[in-house]
């Protein structure tokens, strides 16, 4: 029983969003005598004396399982790496704008998105989803961006004409296409959306 009691307490401490006090544990294991709980806790503490990545700490009168402080640099590195690697919402939106409106300049993207996109563009270029295809012959001669071959591969597209249109999606999935976007004026180009934002 002591072994399984210890296991239950370990699981509880591990999963709890807040440090668990002995009192709270006793309440969760209602009926379990206080001294049995304390004995199991003591044994658990001893277990966590072993070398390892995790430790059992007492914080604010409660218990918590966390990584050992000397390993915190690794944890930070992990978060840093993962943050770097991830395609954030901003990146995805920028990619979408480029995909549907290419070739397009950074100021034009910013105008559509309503925010500056300089950093995100760098990420997309680094990940080879987007490339520079020239300069636009306007004031400042800004770079024009377009999607890459790799972009097509990643999204399983044969070519850009394969990009889904809103009506496609609405039909396939039973979603409602937003009225402003669906009322098509496709005469202008192959673009899947009516362009109301940029002039």
């Amino acid at each position: 029983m002591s072994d399984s009691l210890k296991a239950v307490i370990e699981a509880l401490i591990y999963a709890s969003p807040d440090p668990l006090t002995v009192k709270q544990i006793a309440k969760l294991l209602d009926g379990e005598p206080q001294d049995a709980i304390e004995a199991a806790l003591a044994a658990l503490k001893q277990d966590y004396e072993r070398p390892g990545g995790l430790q059992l700490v007492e914080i604010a009168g409660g218990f918590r399982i966390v990584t050992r402080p000397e390993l915190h640099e690794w944890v930070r590195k992990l978060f840093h790496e993962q943050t770097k690697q991830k395609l954030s919402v901003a990146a995805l939106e920028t990619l979408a704008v480029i995909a549907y409106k290419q070739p397009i300049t950074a100021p034009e993207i910013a105008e559509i998105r309503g925010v500056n996109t300089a950093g995100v563009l760098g990420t997309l270029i680094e990940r080879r989803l987007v490339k520079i295809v020239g300069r636009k012959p306007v004031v400042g001669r800004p770079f024009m961006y377009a999607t890459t071959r790799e972009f097509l591969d990643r999204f399983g597209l044969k070519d850009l004409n394969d990009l889904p249109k809103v009506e496609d999606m609405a039909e396939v999935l039973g979603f409602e296409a937003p009225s402003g976007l669906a009322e098509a004026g496709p005469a202008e180009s192959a673009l899947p959306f009516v362009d109301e934002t940029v002039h």
Partner: protein
Amino acid sequence: MMQEEFESVLEAYPVKLDNFEGPLDLLLHLIKKNEVNVYDIPIVLITKQYLDYIELMRELNLDVAGEFLVMAATLIHVKSRMLLPRPDPAQEDPQEDPREALVRRLIEHQRYKAAAELLHERETVRAAQWMRPDAVVTEIAGEAPEPEIEVDLFSLMSAFRAVLERARHRPKVPLPSEQIPIETRIEQLLSRLSETEACGFDDLFADVNGRSGLIVTFLALLEMIRLKLVRVFQSGAFGPIRVYRRARPVDAPRPILDPESA
């Protein structure tokens, strides 16, 4: 439908009426209910019960989805083929059974139902495995990275839709924030003029597209005139306007610092 018949139907299908996902589900139910072999479906019996069921749904004013009617037609077709004597038994493959295709579909369907159940068991186990709370890690490493978006075409399109939706609701500003500053535009125009000494008024706008570019260029020109960097001449009342670069006089006004760049 006669009253007693109706009741017998109800008794035969003591399941919730809208319980069936589709015609295949209903068929499987009838087969199990009658304890018959799926490889040797008594087609007359099953077809009758199937049609009864659909009639019942109609009597109760339930929507009968098109798929149910398609299956009804299939059943009737199979039944008629079973009942009709074959014109020449030697001609047709003796192995061929009109029910065959239906049986295959039923079995495949049943398999996926079973697979779904097995998956659900896995899901239940997994849901019973708890992760550490985020708080203990964010204390160490700060805010957790956003979970990686597994980007597919749908998310791409949704993202674009979201951007356009936002853009529609954004109040329009007379000059977009992304426009180039007047100072920069002055520099550009001056460098152009240094190549040619003079140019037509229209030429100043040659590389501009969009309203904001026009405005910036015009403001730049006014500022250049004020700073005595250029002279502007017009030949005649309706003649072309030309812009000339000039050496900046000592007494020329100093540029006013752009409050935003200060």
